[in-house]
């Protein structure tokens, strides 16, 4: 099962905070993070990896990105 964190339209550092809260507090194996700026994509990816998550995939749809993370 996966959980989705919708951080679209939110400015720094909220997307990162929401992602880290999910990584620390949630239990789903897979975390999908939706963002709509490159800065957020970079920040979320960087923070998730530093939290020990695996960066599985990033897909772009127009101006939105879906970042797929996997918990070990």
């Amino acid at each position, binding site marked *: 099962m996966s959980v*989705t*964190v*919708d951080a*679209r*339209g*939110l*400015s*720094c*550092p*909220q997307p*990162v*905070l*929401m992602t*880290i809260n999910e990584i620390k507090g949630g239990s789903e194996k897979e975390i999908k993070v939706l963002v*709509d*700026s*490159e*800065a957020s994509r*970079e*920040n979320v990816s*960087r*923070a998730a990896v*530093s939290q020990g998550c695996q960066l599985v995939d*990033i897909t*772009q749809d127009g*101006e939105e990105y879906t970042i797929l993370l996997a918990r070990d």
Partner: protein
Amino acid sequence: MVKNVFATRWGIIGVGAFIGIAAALLQKFGNPGNMGICVACFERDMAGALGFHRAAVVQYMRPEIIGFVLGSLIAALSFKEFRPRSGSAPVVRFVLGMIAMIGALVFLGCPWRAVLRIAGGDWNAVVGLLGLATGIWIGVQFLKNGYTLGRTQPGPKAAGFTLPLIMVGLLALMIIYPFVDGQDKTGVLFYSLKGPGAMHAPLLFSLGIALVIGFIAQRSRFCTMGALRDLILFRQVHLFSGFMALLVFALGTNLILGQFHPGFEGQPVAHTMHIWNFAGMLVAGLAFALAGGCPGRQLFLAGEGDGDAAVFVFGMIAGAAVAHNFGLASSPKGVGPHGIAAVFVGLVICLCIGFFMRRKVQQG
């Protein structure tokens, strides 16, 4: 997706280093002492050039600010990152911009200048930097407790050009009404004949450097507030490494150019009232943290189409006018007649914004 070299560790360090060297050079070529670049001071000078305040010593249409916005716009357009957007509590951002400027003018500098002042040996700025970090720390507590200004919405393409086009207009005014020796006004623009406003590097030199900084700062997301915030919030040193590079390279360049004069007393455009250096920057830091970026970052965001960041910039310019018209801004003699009251009022407003702007973020 093209790999963005500026977003790497060495990228952000390179950007910080470039800004540090460029700032020291701008000072060498005419900008005021320890003020090669100061976003707050320069926006204040622009407010003066337009006559929004009439403090005679701080009136100049600073090409650095214009270049930052346009450089960022060029980068955003080149790399398909131009995203017109707005709607995240713009009026609150305007107020935060005003308070940020008022706090910064009690200290006499934005975070960039705080670092540049230290790099020039002005130890008063160490106190200011501690205040900045404390303000950001308070902001982080609000963020941890769900503080948000809400989501932005994508807007029409043209909306994103608003601030960049205003900057083009201001540059045009500067070319139409250039400084004439001994004259404090040309056409509609005010100029300083003495004081920091009369000190400036040549227009094309300032503009050229600022365009490069705007470009690379947009690519790297360089942000001095973010540097301290991410360090406090996530123990993440990415942006902080750029911040440190700015300090180290500005210091090195100052030593080479003979611009390093250590001490507390007699520092350029600075005062020695430690409590108010600390408190002014605390209020500014809190306002930056609540608004999500230092004054430089707000200019770069506005360049890539962020209308809310543009509103913050207008707030800062309005704040500068208020600060000088109401005697809130400091001078080398010390705090202004109402500067202390302004610090308290600004702090209370920021705390209210932090407490009340809370919303449960929808997930799912």
